[in-house]
C-alpha cells in the first residue's frame, strides 16, 4: 500500500470529548491566571473545580458502555475507563477541596500553577485510563509524572521537598526508560504497539516468545515503579514525606487508579497470552511489598512516611488479585479477581483521601502536622475528626465492617480460588502486622493527652466532604455490593479477553 492509497479516517472527537474539554479548560485557566489579581485568585480554584465537574458531566454524557475506538485506535472508551475516570475526577476534586486552606496558607503554592498542574496531571491520568496504544500509555504516564515532579518541588524553600522532587524525577525517568525499553522489545517481538491488535496477534500465535518475555520484564518493572511496589518502592517514602501534604494527598489518591488502569490495559488486554509469565512476577512483587511495606511502617514515627509504607503494602495486596486472575481459560475467575483488585484500589483511594485529609486539617500556617504524636489527644480537640481518622485507620487495617475489610476479603477469596492458600495466609499475616501501626494511631488519638490545644478550623465545605468521606468508608463497608457490582460489570464489559 503506498501512501497515496492510505485512507485517513477523521477521528471521532465525541468519544474523547472529556479529554478535549479538560485540555481546553486547562489552557483557559492558564491564561486567566495570568491576568487575575492575587486577591481574586479564588477564581482559578473555582474554575478548576468546575472543570472537574464539567469533565464528569461530559464523561457521563458520552458514556455508552460499549467499547469504541478513535484516533486510529489509539484511544479506547469503555465502561471500565469511564468508571475509573469518574473516580479520578472525584478524588482530584476532593484533593483540591481538602487542600484549599493548606494552599492558601502557603504563599509559594497559592499561585495558579498548583491548579493548572493538577489539571494537567488529571489529563495525563485520563489519557492513561483510555489508552489503547503503548505510545499513549507512555505519554499519559509522562504527562502525569512531569506535573507531579513539579508539584512535589513546589515548596522551593524546603530542602526535603526539593530533595523529594529530585529523587522522584531521577527515579521516574529511570522507570520511564525501563517502560519504553520494554515497549520497544514488545514491538520488536510482535511488530505492533496497538494493544488490541497486539493481543489478537499473540492469540494467533504470532510473535517471538523470548523477546516478548524479555520485554515483559521491563514492562512489569516500569509499571511496578509507577505503582510503587517493592523492589521499586524507594521513592515512595521520601516523596510522601518531602512533598507538601496537599501534593502527598494528590499522589496517594488518583494516580493509583490510573496505574491500575494501565495494568489492565497493558498486561491483561494486551499481553494476556503471556499471563503465565507476568502472574509470577506480580506474585513476587506483591509478597515482597506486603512484607517490606508492613514491617517498615511499624518503625515510622512520621505519619506521612507511615502511610507511604502502608501505600506500598496496599498496592502489593492489590496486585495479589491481578496475579491470580487467569486460571485455565475460565472467564469467571478473571472477572472476580480483577474486579476485586479494582474494588480494592477504589476503596484504598477513599480511605487514603480521608487519612491525608485529616493530616491537612491539623496543619496550619507555619505548622505541618507530620508526626504521629501530632495526633495525640485528637479526640479531646475534636471528636468527630478523630472518629473519621479512626474509621480510615480501621478501614486500612481491614477491620470488619469497614470497607477495607471487604476489599481484603474479596481479594483473598480470589487468591484462595486460584489455589494459593499459603499466599492468602501470608497476606493475612502481613495484614495483622499492619493492624499494629494503624491501631497505634487510634491509641494516640484517644488515650494520649493532647500536646497542643489549637482549635481545628476548617471551612464548611471541607467539613461536609470530610464527613461524607468518613461515612462513605463506613456505609460502603456495611453494604459493599453496589460498588462491587459496578467494578465487576465495568470490567466485564471492557476486558477483551472475554470476547
Amino acid at each position, binding site marked *: 500500500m503506498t501512501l497515496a492509497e492510505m485512507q485517513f479516517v477523521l477521528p471521532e472527537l465525541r468519544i474523547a470529548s472529556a479529554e478535549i474539554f479538560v485540555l481546553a479548560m486547562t489552557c483557559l485557566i492558564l491564561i486567566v491566571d495570568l491576568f487575575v489579581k492575587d486577591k481574586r485568585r479564588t477564581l482559578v480554584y473555582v474554575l478548576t473545580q468546575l472543570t472537574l465537574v464539567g469533565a464528569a458531566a461530559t464523561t457521563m454524557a458520552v458514556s455508552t458502555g460499549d467499547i469504541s475506538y478513535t484516533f486510529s485506535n489509539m484511544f479506547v472508551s469503555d465502561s471500565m475507563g469511564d468508571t475509573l475516570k469518574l473516580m479520578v475526577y472525584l478524588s482530584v476534586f476532593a484533593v483540591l477541596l481538602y487542600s484549599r486552606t493548606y494552599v492558601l496558607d502557603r504563599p509559594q503554592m497559592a499561585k495558579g500553577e498548583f491548579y493548572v498542574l493538577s489539571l*494537567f496531571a488529571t489529563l495525563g491520568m485520563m489519557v492513561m485510563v483510555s489508552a489503547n496504544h503503548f505510545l499513549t500509555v507512555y505519554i499519559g504516564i509522562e504527562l502525569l509524572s512531569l506535573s507531579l515532579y513539579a508539584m512535589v518541588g513546589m515548596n522551593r524553600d524546603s530542602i526535603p521537598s526539593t530533595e523529594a522532587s529530585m529523587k522522584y524525577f531521577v527515579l521516574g525517568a529511570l522507570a520511564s526508560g525501563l517502560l519504553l525499553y520494554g515497549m520497544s522489545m514488545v514491538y520488536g517481538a510482535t511488530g505492533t504497539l496497538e494493544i488490541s491488535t497486539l493481543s489478537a496477534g499473540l492469540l494467533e500465535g504470532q510473535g517471538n516468545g523470548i523477546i516478548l518475555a524479555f520485554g515483559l520484564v521491563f514492562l512489569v518493572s516500569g509499571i511496578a515503579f509507577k505503582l510503587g511496589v517493592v523492589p521499586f518502592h524507594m521513592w515512595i517514602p521520601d516523596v510522601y514525606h518531602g512533598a507538601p501534604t496537599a501534593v502527598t494527598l494528590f499522589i496517594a489518591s488518583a494516580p493509583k487508579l490510573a496505574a491500575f488502569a494501565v495494568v489492565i490495559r497493558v498486561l491483561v488486554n494486551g499481553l494476556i497470552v503471556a499471563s503465565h509469565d507476568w502472574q509470577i512476577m506480580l506474585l513476587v512483587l506483591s509478597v515482597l511489598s506486603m512484607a517490606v511495606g508492613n514491617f517498615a511502617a511499624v518503625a515510622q514515627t512520621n505519619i506521612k512516611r507511615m502511610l507511604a509504607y502502608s501505600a506500598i503494602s496496599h498496592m502489593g495486596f492489590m496486585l495479589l488479585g491481578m496475579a491470580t486472575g487467569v486460571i485455565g481459560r475460565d472467564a469467571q475467575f478473571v472477572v472476580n479477581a480483577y474486579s476485586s483488585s479494582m474494588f480494592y484500589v477504589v476503596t484504598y483511594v477513599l480511605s487514603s483521601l480521608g487519612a491525608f485529609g485529616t493530616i491537612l486539617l491539623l496543619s496550619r500556617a507555619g505548622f505541618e502536622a507530620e508526626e504521629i504524636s501530632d495526633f495525640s489527644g485528637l479526640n479531646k480537640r475534636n471528636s468527630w475528626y478523630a472518629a473519621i481518622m479512626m474509621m480510615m485507620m480501621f478501614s486500612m487495617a481491614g477491620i470488619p465492617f469497614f470497607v477495607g475489610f471487604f476489599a481484603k476479603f474479596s481479594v483473598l477469596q480470589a487468591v484462595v480460588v486460584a489455589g494459593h492458600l499459603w499466599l492468602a495466609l501470608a497476606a493475612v499475616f502481613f495484614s495483622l502486622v499492619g493492624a499494629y501501626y494503624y491501631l497505634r494511631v487510634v491509641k494516640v488519638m484517644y488515650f494520649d493527652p493532647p500536646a497542643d490545644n489549637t482549635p481545628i478550623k476548617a471551612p464548611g465545605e471541607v467539613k461536609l466532604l470530610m464527613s461524607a468521606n468518613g461515612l462513605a468508608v463506613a456505609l460502603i463497608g456495611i453494604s459493599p455490593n453496589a460498588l462491587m457490582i459496578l467494578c465487576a460489570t465495568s470490567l466485564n464489559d471492557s476486558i477483551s479477553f472475554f470476547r
Partner: protein
Amino acid sequence: MEFRTFVFYFLSAILVFAALRVVTLRNPVHAALHLVLAFFSASGIWILLQAEFLAIALILVYVGAVMVLFLFVVMLLDINLDRLREGFWSYLPLGAIVALLIVAEMGLVLGGMYWGILEGDVPQVEAGFSNVQAVGRLLFTEYVYPFELASVVLLVGIVAATALTLRDKRKSKSLSPSEQVFVKAKDRVRVLQMPAEKND
C-alpha cells in the same frame, strides 16, 4: 555474515560502548564526546533503515543540543578553561579516536550504494519518495493524538519550569517609563535642614 549485518553490528557495538562510557566516565567533557558518538552511531543505524530524515533530525537536534548542553556544563560547573586547554594534548587521542570512528561510520553509510548495503529486506522505495513527507503525513493523521499530547507535555514543562524558578513578579531591573514620567523632585531628593556647625 552479510556486509549489511556487519555494518549494523559494528554501529550497534559502538553505540552501546559509547552509551556505557557516557554513564561511567567521570569527566564531563569525555562523557559529552561519547554522547556525540552514540548519537552518530544511532543515526547511522537509522540511515541503514532508509530513514534519512530521522537520522538528520537526530544529528541536528541532539548533537546540536548536546553541544549546547556541553557548554552549559562547562559554564555551570565552573571548569577552568585554562586548565581545560592545558589538557588539550591528553584529550587529543580520545578526540581523534572519536572523530575517526565517526568518519568511518559516515563512510560506511554514505558509501552504502557502493558496498551494496542498502539492498536487502528493507522495503525499497521508488525514486522521489520523501521521507519528510511520509513522517509528516503520519504525524498529522494516524499519530495526531500522541502528537498533540506531546505538545501538552512540552506545555507542562514550561509551566513546571516557571512554577519552580520564578521567584517574584518584578525581580528584573526593567524600567517603567510611565512611572518615571510622573516622578517629582521630592520623591528623589530630600532637602535636609541642618544647624550650621560652629568653627571654634
